[in-house]
């Protein structure tokens, strides 16, 4: 798994590639949590993530729970497998989801 973080002003785009499983999830968590600030605008780009286990969902849940009132988080580029898992487990309702990065940018306030 690789994580590429690009920051422009208050916007942060995090591009993840590779599988997110119990081995890679702690590293992802360490990359993501410091990005949570009172007015952060985060876009998590997952189109290059083929497979995500429940360890990945746990990272998303941590991120979601730590997101402050005025923080924003959008997930983009989920493949069918990840979307299905998130639908089944009820995670989809917790997040703002957009198909592509441009759509994700447009969804930010």
């Amino acid at each position: 798994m690789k994580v590429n973080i690009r920051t422009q002003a208050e916007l942060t785009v995090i591009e993840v590639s590779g599988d997110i499983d119990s081995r890679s999830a702690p590293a992802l968590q360490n990359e993501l949590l410091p990005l949570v600030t009172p007015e952060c605008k985060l876009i998590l780009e997952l189109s290059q993530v083929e497979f995500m286990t429940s360890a990945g969902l746990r990272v998303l849940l941590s991120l979601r729970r730590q997101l402050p009132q005025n923080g924003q988080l959008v997930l983009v580029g989920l493949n069918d497998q990840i979307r299905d898992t998130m639908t089944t487990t009820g995670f989809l309702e917790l997040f703002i989801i957009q198909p592509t990065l441009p759509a994700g940018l447009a969804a930010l306030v």
Partner: protein
Amino acid sequence: MSEHTLLVVDDNQLNRDSLSRILNRQGYRVETAENGLEALERLHCQDFDLVLLDIMMPVMNGYEVLKHLKADAKLRRIPVIVVSANEEIESVVQCIELGAEDYLPKPFNRVLLQARITASLERKRLYDQEQQYLELVRRELATGRQIQTDFLPPELPRLNGLELAACFKPAREVAGDFFDAFVLPGNRVVLVVADVCDKGVGAALFMALTRSLLRVLAQQAAARLQLLASDPEQHFVLVKDKKLPEGLLLAAPTYEILQAVKLANDYITLNHNRVDMFATLFFGVLELNTGKLAYINAGHEAPLHLGSNALRGRLKATGPAVGVMPGANFGIRQVQFEPGDGFLAYTDGVTEARNQAGQFFGEKQLVQIAVESFEQAQVSAEGLIQKLEGLIQSYIAGGEPGDDITMLTAIYTLTQQAD
């Protein structure tokens, strides 16, 4: 003062004496041996931290000593420094290939001698430390796995009207799968299959928490109703939600038992939310008298309802995973089991088992095999699970070890009416 004991092996007494003197002065305890055979004897009856080994010796030379040491599980980790004249560089290379740690040219230079010995002992110390740490981790994992196993029913209930079988193959790493089956008043059986997110001892502990909460809350609900109502089976609850506008009429005990899921979720989200853990789970209450299976599926892989000729249906998610949303509501659904119908619940370790090429076993294949196996006449719950387990095991042979593999099967048989 160093606590290290070194063994000097050399057939030349002058060499032995001068080396011993130098090393004594540098603070090491020194023992000596005149040839390889004597060295091996000493190594077998006393602990040494390091060996300084000459190559050319009568009786047994240095090469033979190295071969013996490296073939001995107890001795192979003792560092060996080969002591040799500079012109013997070929022999030194051979010794290094045989597993010697380092070499020291003759005649000895004190500074070099000390440096080589210190470096070898330090490497050994780090290696030992790492081994101790790994051993600790192994013990922790074994404890986690033991916790996990202790929270599974030691044996499934034997019932008139229902055949049960389960398979639980924990992954190499500890994870948090579990299944449960227990009997409650009113000829009811609770069937649970769950998968705690992530792996490790944390997952095993969270599994223990979730399983205990569900069991206690379900048993308490049933017991409470027995106390409150003279005949709780005469009370009913109409369950309604957006997708079930006409409502579902459930016997009060069945409804109350199912509330264990909601209560467990409320408890976990209130008291254990800081760990950000959750469990997907299927929780079903089967009334053996009627064949009705009322269930909550909290974000879990949809179990299969198998009929004699086909897949009768999937028992899909009716709510989020437990531990995710405080105060979440969980929908209740019910299916009718006819005599001969089967049930299969599993965790994603089954569908996400990978073969050597890294491909998933997959849901499609699992459903197909389950239906086919079930169609073959007179398949038993145990037979079905063994067949599935065998197919999965041969599928993953040679592949990467994956997640826990957990399955629970049930076959509803004709209830024998008591006379």
